[in-house]
């Protein structure tokens, strides 16, 4: 019986091993032999499109729309591989250098590091955290704007408050310009990082591009398990790496605080002792901020120089947004008593800056502050604005662009800043009463940006208030102000005679038939920039009036009108010798042949004609 069973068993085994392939039999035997030895798992590469757009600095489209807005970057591509100016893409608000040429643009900050090119950013959340192996961006129109890709250690979809948020640069480069505006898939070689991420940030610079860049989708490729150490390259420690600056900023002059050893003083600082004080100051004024902080640790003399408040009359912390914290501000506080221009744009998000740190810094350095840039500072709340209004009585420039989480009530504090000359409230939730109150008290306003302020109910009232109170207004941005009519516009141009720049793009309620554009041209002889983007009523008589009355015109945008002909544009080009930008995209009477003809007449004018293929 037993022998029968064992024979049967033996025969079955043999049959099984013969029926399987030789390879299978071998591996199965090996597996059995090796026992507990684990087989290395093949790491599966996960490919995901962006799940949600979490934050961004600007966009072309309207706040509750899906046309040309940043939310189009989430999900699968809608346009790629076609190229063209389509509604389903993500488009930023500006391109080229046109906005930097305007009077409303602030001068650049000193000490901006050479490698910092970013002008706009967008943050994307993905479904699953992975160790990234590749990032692909689908650019469908005028590619070349991406300058930096960063990854964050924090998972934006958890309920937990962010702790120990780290940002790592996956790739950085210079802004480029691709020769043809065709769609492409941009996939730079990225660095390997030591933490899994599902939050990416793209930073862009469109200054070299001929038109708006448009992005369609982003793919994040990565692996779930941490890559093997053998394959994992240790990052080369870069001497200019920002991760060093945090230590410097937080512990400046630490080792030398005990200082004062007479032996050191006698050995001296070489030739530095012979140089006049102000010459050393001049030399140091060329260093970037992290270098300045590192230099302060080298010797007592240089420590004294580097902590001199005269070195900190202008302070731009925007390039270091990823590293800035309350502690950094605390350590810089003592040097910033003479601070005049401060750039905190993009800083402080996800808990990096709080009211306490911010208010103590403002109390220390607010007295002499003249310019405060706080674009995309989401840590701001009503209390912060109150602190600003109390500590900065002399403030002349305030930029709260895209601070869309600020409560409408917070803006009432701005009316206490009566010396304000430049106020940027692009994409904020300011309401009617607050803006009217600001305009009542801030009568020295020269530059005002109310672009995409959707909570303001009646722009005609705002316009008449401007005409009544802000007579020295030089530039006004009313991009996408949905209910400004000819009545308000007429009052505005009658009252603010010094206006040089006026952006009325996508204001659908302005009708040329009322004569408001012609009245505008006649009333504003100093006009240098006029945007009438997507105002479908702009006609030949408006262009002719501009030609006749506005000889200083430099930038003109009449996108999307069917009523303007080549003849009136020729007149305009002849009468306005300083014209450098003319956007005639989607003007049905102006086709490519006309554009080429006009470009031949005036070769130094950039005539823009966008297309959808």
């Amino acid at each position, binding site marked *: 019986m037993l022998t029968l069973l064992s024979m049967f068993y033996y025969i079955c085994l043999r049959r099984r091993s013969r029926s399987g392939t030789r390879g299978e039999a071998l591996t199965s035997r090996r597996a059995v032999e090796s026992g507990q030895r684990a087989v290395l798992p093949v790491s599966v590469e996960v490919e995901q499109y962006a799940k949600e757009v979490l934050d961004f600095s600007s966009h072309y489209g309207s706040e509750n729309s899906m*046309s040309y807005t940043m939310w189009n970057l989430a*999900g699968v591509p809608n346009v790629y591989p076609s190229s063209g100016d389509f*509604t*389903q893409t993500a488009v930023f608000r500006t391109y080229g250098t046109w906005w930097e040429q305007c009077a409303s643009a602030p001068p650049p900050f000193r000490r901006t590091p050479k490698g910092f090119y970013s002008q706009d950013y967008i943050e994307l959340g993905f479904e699953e955290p992975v160790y990234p192996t590749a990032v692909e961006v689908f650019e469908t129109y005028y590619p070349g704007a991406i300058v930096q890709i960063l990854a964050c250690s924090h998972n934006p979809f958890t309920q937990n408050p962010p702790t120990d948020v780290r940002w790592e640069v996956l790739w950085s480069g210079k802004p480029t310009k691709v020769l043809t505006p065709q769609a492409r898939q941009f996939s730079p070689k990225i660095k390997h990082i030591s933490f899994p991420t599902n939050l990416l940030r793209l930073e862009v610079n469109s200054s070299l591009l001929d038109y708006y860049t448009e992005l369609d989708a982003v793919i994040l490729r990565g692996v779930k398990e941490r890559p093997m150490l053998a394959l994992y390259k240790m990052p080369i420690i870069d001497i200019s790496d920002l991760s060093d600056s945090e230590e410097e900023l937080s512990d400046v002059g630490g080792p030398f605080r005990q200082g004062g050893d007479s032996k050191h003083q006698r050995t001296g600082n070489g030739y530095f002792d012979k140089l006049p004080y102000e010459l050393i100051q001049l030399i140091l004024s060329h260093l970037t901020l992290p270098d300045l902080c590192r230099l302060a640790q080298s010797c007592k003399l240089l420590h004294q120089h580097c902590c001199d408040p005269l070195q900190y009359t202008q302070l731009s912390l925007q390039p270091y947004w990823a590293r800035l914290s309350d502690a950094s501000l605390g350590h810089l506080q003592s040097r910033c008593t003479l601070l005049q221009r401060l750039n905190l744009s993009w800083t402080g998000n996800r808990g990096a800056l709080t009211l306490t740190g911010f208010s103590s810094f403002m109390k220390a350095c607010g007295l002499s502050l003249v310019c405060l840039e706080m674009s995309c500072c989401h840590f701001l709340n009503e209390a912060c604005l109150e602190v600003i209004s109390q500590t900065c009585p002399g403030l002349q420039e305030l930029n709260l662009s895209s601070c869309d989480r600020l409560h409408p009530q917070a803006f009432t504090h701005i009316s206490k800043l009566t010396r304000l000359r430049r106020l940027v409230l692009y994409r904020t939730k300011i309401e009617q009463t607050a803006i009217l109150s600001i305009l009542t008290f801030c009568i020295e306003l020269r530059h005002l940006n109310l672009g995409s302020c959707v909570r303001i109910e009646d722009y005609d009232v705002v316009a008449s208030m401007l005409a009544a109170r802000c007579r020295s207004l030089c530039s006004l941005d009313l991009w996408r102000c949905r209910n400004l009519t000819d009545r308000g516009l007429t009052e505005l141009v009658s009252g603010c005679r010094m206006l040089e720049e006026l952006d009325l793009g996508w204001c659908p309620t302005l009708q040329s038939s009322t004569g408001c554009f012609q009245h505008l041209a006649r009333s504003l002889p100093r006009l240098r920039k006029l945007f009438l983007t997507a105002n*479908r009523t702009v006609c030949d008589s408006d262009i002719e009036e501009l030609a006749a009355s506005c000889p200083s015109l430099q930038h003109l945008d009449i996108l*999307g009108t069917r*009523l303007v002909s080549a003849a009136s544009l020729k007149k305009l080009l002849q009468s306005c010798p300083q014209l450098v930008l003319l956007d005639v995209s989607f003007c*049905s009477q102006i086709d490519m042949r006309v554009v080429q003809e006009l470009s031949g007449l005036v070769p130094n004018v950039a005539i823009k004609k966008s297309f*959808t293929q």
Partner: protein
Amino acid sequence: MLSVLSYGRLVARAVLGGLSQTDGRDYSLISASYGFGKDFRKGILKKGMCYGDDACFIARHKTADVLGVADGVGGWRDYGVDPSQFSATLMRTCERLVKEGRFTPSNPVGILTSGYYELLQNKVPLLGSSTACIVVLDRRSHRLHTCNLGDSGFLVVRGGEVVHRSDEQQHYFNTPFQLSIAPPGAEGVVLSDSPEAADSSSFDVQLGDIILTATDGLFDNMPDYMILQELKKLKVSLLDISFCFYMMKTNSHFNAFYCCSFQTTNYDSILQTAQSIAKQAHDLAYDPNYMSPFAQFACDNGLNVRGKVTVLIKIVYC
């Protein structure tokens, strides 16, 4: 052995599905679309879901299936504007809104309003006008939410009878309510109705219901009894498990939707029925002796349009 078991399972499911009126499972839609375009001479072939001046879409989101039809108003052709551009762009925009979840299933008027608003956000200066009818099936609650602006519309057929239908919205004869974007200066002259003027309704649907949506080309040429006849021919048998809803679009576009919780479908059967209804409407349109509902209505309005009916519709296969 295995096949007997699976067959038995199918039968059991079919029987259960047929018998149970309240179904805890989500309904789903199976659709087919077919249509006739208009412009034979120009030979214009439009993409996908466009037939002549009509356009339509079928889209799915997490909890809802949405169908839409839009009939471009042909009068724009006299002013050099392509009437199909407006209706096609409107439907594509509504489809995108649905796919991205920017809508509430119980509020189809919201889809129309948002879609119309998005048309105005396009850099391209669109002109034209169209009617619109949007139907949303909420899969969880088994309710159908509809809205209709103009003379397109829908029919709901249950057990061979019409249980719900939309009303035509007309300003006067042959001038339906319409969404429009007018050239500047012509705003006073061009009819432009607000999306909020659309009629909306909501009602429950049951397994086996047939929903037909169509533009005026169907309703103007085929009276109800003819439509019902064609629908009866649709094979609906438990074992066959072929359910279809269909929406017919006029002048041609024919979409089918079928409310059912089974995934199998006999697509060919749906398509066949769609084709036969469209063809019948087409034939009737060209029949000079046939007194279509449209012709009847025209007569009532003092117009002799018997002959005109054929002129109004020029049909070609797309």
